[in-house]
């Protein structure tokens, strides 16, 4: 029970910190000392305090967007094992639910974008759903590999770091899967080199342009949800890359937190050393991610 509470606590509290860490890393690379680690928390609080502006063209859909977005990510977070601890909710096929929850969130955030009737939001929504069409299969191929390796159909057991087939068989596929997952993670969370959460250059933006018209608490929810999505997917990637476990339960939690923060640093480094690709390359990379995971599957099926 206590484990579950810890899980929920981390899920609710930790995500903005990741953004803080990423920001700090980029600042360091940029030679600035940058905003404090907790800056994202301040922003969120400020946003929740603010009043809000709603376009006259919008309907309930526009308001439903952030709500559904946040709810789905929260629930998805409950399906992922943090560190060595099994997820609070885990059953056969939960990885499918995991993917489909994000799809549900996408459905409503994109619809909300279209609700404003502005060309920019429409563009963003179009790009969002378009790229996810390529990200989804990649994700599922990764799941296939994990399922085959762990001979199980539930994320908790998939990610518990034990591979009946033996590490020798597992290693090559796992490398491919990790690479693929990393690309998917960057795209899905609109990070450089695929998207930039900080600029507002319409021509290249995906996620940010979608939420252009949201303001105040709604915008806060969206950013909080985005952070949480990054956190959750990061947790998955972490378990694939480094399924380490400490002897002690609480040390295990600490290990997990450290790991996720390191992942944030890595992301920050990637963002600092790479420039954003042109839009036309995004699909190419996603297809590459797909192919990586497909090879992962083929390696196992041969």
């Amino acid at each position, binding site marked *: 029970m206590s484990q579950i509470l810890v899980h929920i606590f981390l899920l609710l509290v930790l995500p903005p910190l990741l953004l803080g860490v990423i920001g700090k890393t980029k600042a360091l690379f940029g030679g600035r000392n940058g905003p404090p680690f907790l800056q994202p928390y301040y922003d969120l609080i400020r946003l929740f305090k603010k009043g809000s502006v709603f376009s006259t*063209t919008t309907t309930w859909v526009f308001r439903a967007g952030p709500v559904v977005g946040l709810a789905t990510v929260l629930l998805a977070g409950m399906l992922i094992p943090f560190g060595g601890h099994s997820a609070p909710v885990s059953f056969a096929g939960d990885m499918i639910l995991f993917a489909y929850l994000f799809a549900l969130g996408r459905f409503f955030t994109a619809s909300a974008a279209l609700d404003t009737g502005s060309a920019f939001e429409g563009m963003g929504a179009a790009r969002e759903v378009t790229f996810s069409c390529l990200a989804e299969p990649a994700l599922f191929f990764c799941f*296939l590999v994990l399922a085959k390796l762990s001979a199980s159909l539930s994320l908790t057991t998939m990610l518990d770091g034990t591979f009946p087939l033996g590490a020798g068989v597992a290693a090559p596929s796992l490398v491919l899967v990790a690479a693929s997952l990393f690309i998917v993670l960057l795209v899905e969370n609109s990070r450089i080199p695929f998207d930039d959460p900080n600029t507002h250059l319409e021509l290249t933006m995906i996620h940010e342009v979608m939420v252009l018209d949201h303001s105040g608490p709604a915008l806060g929810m969206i950013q909080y949800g985005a952070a949480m999505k990054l956190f959750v997917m990061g947790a998955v990637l972490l378990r694939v890359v480094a399924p380490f476990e400490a002897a002690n339960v609480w040390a295990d939690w600490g290990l997990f937190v450290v790991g996720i923060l390191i992942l944030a640093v890595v992301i920050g480094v990637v963002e600092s050393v790479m420039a954003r690709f042109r839009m036309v390359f995004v699909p190419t990379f996603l297809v590459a991610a797909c192919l990586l995971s497909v090879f992962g599957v083929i390696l196992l099926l041969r």
Partner: protein
Amino acid sequence: MSEWLVILGIACHAFSGVPGLFLRRDPAAGQWLAMRLAVLGSALGITGALVALWSPAQLFPVMRLDAIAVIFLIPIFLVSALGSIYGLEYWAQAEHSGNGRKLRVFYGLVTAGLAGVAVAANSLLFLFAWEVMALSAFFLVSTEDHDQEVRDAGMLYLVITHFSTLCLFALFAIWYVATGSFALGALPAGAVTPTMATVLFMLMVVAFGFKAGLMPFHIWLPSAHAMAPSHVSAMMSGVLIKIGIYGLVRMVSWLPDPPAWWGGTLLVLGTVSGVLGVVFALGQHDLKRLLAYHSIENIGIIVMGLGLALAGRSLHVTAWIVLGLAGALLHVWNHGLFKALLFLSAGSVIHSTHTRVIDRLGGLAAVMPFTALLFAVGAVAICGLPPLNGFVSELLIYLGLFRTLGIGAEPSWGVAAFAAAMLALIGALAVACFVKAFGAIFLGVARSDSARHAHESGRVMTGSMLVLAVCCFCIGLFPWAVSLVLELGIAAWVPGLNAELPALRTLAPLGWISMVAFTLIGLMFLIGLGLVRRLHRSRVTAAGTWDCGYAAPTPNMQYTASSFAQMLGSFFVWVLRPEVLVSEKQPVFPGRMHFRSHVMDVVLDEVLRPAYQIGVRISSRFHFFQAGNIHAYLAYIVIFLIVLLLWR
């Protein structure tokens, strides 16, 4: 008892339209009567079907009312009854005095035919019911036959359905020769050679594939669905094409020991038609054609499940049988529900705006909130998203496909695992497509006057839609409630190994699903509540949409459905092959520009029509044979005579 109820129900439907023919004085009464009869018939039929589940009776040799039949009967009766209620307002006799009667007569008949097919245990009865269904559907499609487009759609449908009937002729003829009777039942092992069994299987795939709209046999489906009145489209898409699935499920189960590649074939066909169906849907500008292509996609998903189950039968993996078939059968229900819902809401839009062109709509959510909400429900459901019913059936199929990796002690059939990823692709594309449709139709600002002057439909229409929406929620929230019916169906599908069949709930987390669904809804409710209260406390101002500083936005500057799908379409340009017309470069001060793109149906417009033209040209080559010249005629006789004399 149960059979009598079903027969009564069928009879009610069959005659529902007839009184209207004679009530020329008061046609509205005829419509009411038809509706009443239809509802009564459906009530009787569904009761009978449910009773049959608990007490399977076998009164008549020509009739089989087992679980599989029941599973298909229920949506047939439900959707048709709701459709006829909906028709009261949508196709009010007052507005359609010309074809209203005809429509109702054949509407009743098509329901009766469908139910008849579902219960037929005799090949002749099967064919009769089949053709009654097919022909009445033809008359329904060509309801407004003063319109050339409608006539073409009708003709195409008629030809295709006759093809499938002819395939059934061959199928049942071989069946008769093999078994020596018209009674339909499992073929005894050794009744047919393996080659002949394969022929039978192929005939089934073609005949029922045509009816079900499986790629590449789907060609009739889009135009027919688009041209028919919306409640008829709902009927056709919801249950009529499912009768093809019924035939496939039923007859495949009767073939002794299928080789594994049969299941593989079905899996491939299903995947192809799933992916291509949704891809073509992306390219459509016509709301109903878009929905029609989504039917093709969902049929594909169903067939994937069936293929998995069939492979399970050949490789003796009960888990695949259970998951695959349960997924397929449940998806039959689900698609029946949400596709009917979507077509009815589309009808509601068309009824108030008189256009099917997506790019001429927009902003309807403001004026038709109920329709918008119900369409959204349908859209979420058809994308297979939780917490609605579509998710459940797709999850079952996913689980089955994942298991083909060889989880645990089961044999591995890894190729099938790729289908899982394809299913994911289908899901993502469906989301894209329905965001496009929902957004372009209901959200943003109206793009045309017809959309600007739209109005919400009346209680009758929204009511019948609401019922379907509620059903979608029920299955999504309480999947374990239907698991028993599905298990009975599966048991009826493989009578041989009922003992070994694992229970569905041991393989699929039905309890978890409903728990998660409730949690999700609860979370949304709480967060929504939070947001609302926050907004109440804070200052909320209304303003125009921020257009990055652009001063005078107009509705035409919105992202249209076509532009929304443009990038995705460009990925699939190799199959969509859209024909694009752009007006040539403009001078320095550009005036009006024109751009239109149109997606054809590859199979129909680029394969079959040309083939037909070639056939016509060849046949006209032969016309010199009958050139009116009697000398030639006499010459044929003597030549033929000599040929025959020298024959042997």
